[in-house]
Structures are given as structure tokens and as C-alpha cells.
């Protein structure tokens, strides 16, 4: 069900593209619509190619279209773009020594916070049980 929904999204929100970038092969069309979301527009840098009207975005979309029609694979297209524009053009940064902090950081932070919270909770419990002990003591007296 979810798969159908996702497929529907990819097909329907790119009717415009079909006019400028016509494909005979439906599989290639789907690949194109996915790829143009995976690359960053170098000019309007918080946007992907799909969501940008900048001239360079149009040029790159056209280039990707041509490369797909030539039978190039997704990896070959990614290589073409990163050789010219660098890793920054990938919307999802690659995982390497430089970006590992970016990827792992949030999880690491989460673990640290959970640890501190659990310490805090256990301290509260200890304090609460101390209070109870004192209370019982006075009653006994």
C-alpha cells in the first residue's frame, strides 16, 4: 500500500517534467524524477534540483535527462556531478571520515542525554527513599 502511495507521488507531481523531459521508457522516467530530488541546486543551496528554477538547476536537469537517455547508471550520473560540483551536490552527504560526526552525532547526543536523564532519575529515587526512611524513623519514635 505504502509502495503504491510513494509510486503515485513520484508519478503525479512531475507532469511538468514530462513535457520538457519526455521519456519513452517509464522506468527511466521514474529514475529521473527520483534523481532530481537527490541532488542539490548549487545556486539555491537549500533546494534540490527538482524544486529549483535557477538556470543552473535547469541545465543540470537537462544534463541528467541526457545521461539517462544515453543509458548511464545512477552511480555514473552521481560521479559526473560530483566530479564537477563536489560532494556538496549530493543532498544526502556521503559517509566518510569528515561527515561521520554529522551522521553519528545525533545518536551519540541522544545516548548521552538518556544517560544523564537516567542518572537524574535514579538520584531522585534515592533521595525520595531517604525521605521515606526518615519519615518511618520518626513514626517509630
Amino acid at each position, binding site marked *: 500500500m505504502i509502495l503504491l502511495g510513494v509510486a503515485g507521488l513520484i508519478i503525479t507531481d512531475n507532469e511538468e517534467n514530462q513535457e520538457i523531459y519526455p521519456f519513452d521508457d517509464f522506468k527511466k522516467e521514474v529514475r529521473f524524477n527520483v534523481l532530481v530530488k537527490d541532488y542539490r541546486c*548549487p*545556486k539555491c*543551496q537549500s533546494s534540490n534540483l527538482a524544486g529549483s528554477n535557477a*538556470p*543552473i538547476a535547469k*541545465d*543540470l536537469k537537462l*544534463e541528467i535527462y541526457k545521461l539517462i537517455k544515453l543509458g548511464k547508471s545512477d552511480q555514473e550520473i552521481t560521479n559526473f556531478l*560530483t*566530479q*564537477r*560540483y*563536489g560532494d*556538496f551536490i549530493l543532498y544526502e552527504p556521503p559517509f566518510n571520515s569528515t561527515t561521520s560526526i554529522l551522521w553519528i552525532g545525533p545518536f551519540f547526543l541522544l545516548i548521552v542525554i538518556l544517560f*544523564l536523564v537516567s*542518572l*537524574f532519575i535514579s*538520584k531522585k529515587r534515592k533521595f525520595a527513599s531517604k525521605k521515606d526512611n526518615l519519615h518511618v524513623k520518626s513514626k517509630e519514635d
Partner: protein
Amino acid sequence: MNKIIHTVPLVFFGFLVAFLFFSLGNKNDQLESVLIDQNFPNFSLTTLEDANRIIGKEDIVDLPALVNVWATWCITCKVEHPFLMSLKENSVINIYGLNYKDSRDKALITLEQDGNPFIYSIFDKTGSLAMDLGVYGAPETFLIGADGLIKVRHVGALTPVVWEKKFSMFLK
């Protein structure tokens, strides 16, 4: 021990705020060029001045030299134009133009009216050479070193300050 545990999150948060605050001013919309220390890409295009003259990378001679990406639709290019003229007039460095996705007629008229700082301009009508250079707008300026490798790529107007900081050290 209690006190230490309580201050750690606060101190960490303080560092985070400081880091993010200083990052706000870090307006880095200049992409790092991945072509540094690589050869200038091959190409086969006409010059702006002569539609019958086809040139390639081997026609960029007398290195080191600048390759300046410009167009008549580019307003910032007009801002840097006087500085390019001064580089030419003082024989500081050879400058080759890369006319980017422009009208040949308009470009020639503009050079005639404003002055031509270029030895010649490469007429890149479709932006194919520009794409191979990782260009994403105009103006951009590349410095090709004496060894034939790309040494610098600057996005935005070439100014005396930028020249001094990024380019001047590569002169022979």
C-alpha cells in the same frame, strides 16, 4: 558530584549556543571547487570574436592566466569589469574570457562599449564548458597556474582584496 552533573548540560548547551551563533555569520555560499590542482577540461568551441575559429584547451597559453566567466546579463560582472581592465592595462596577468550562455551580438557590443580586458573570449553558448568547470553562475574566475593546473576558483566579483588574498601568490 551532584553539582558537576547539574552544570554539565548547561555548559554543553552554552557551547552549542555559542557555536550556532557564530555560525550564523558564516555565510558560505561559495562552493569549494573540486577542480583545484587538476587540468583545465578539454573543450571545442568557437571564440566570441570569430565564429569560424574553433579553439580548445591548448589555446589557453602564456600561463599563468585567468579564465573569467562573464555574460551581458550578469550585473556583478559590470562591477568587476574596471578591475579586470586595470589588470590588463598594467600587464599583470593574461585574462581569457568565458562568455557564458550569452548572445554573441550583445556580448561583442558590450566589449566594444565598455572595453575588452580579454585576449579573447570562449563562446560557451550552451554552458557545456562551464558545467565541466563546475560553474553555477557568473561572475566566476579561475586561475590556471604556470604548470597548467587550476589553482584557484573564485565565485563573485574579482576585487583588489580578493586578488591580493587568493590570486596574487600564483604569479610567476
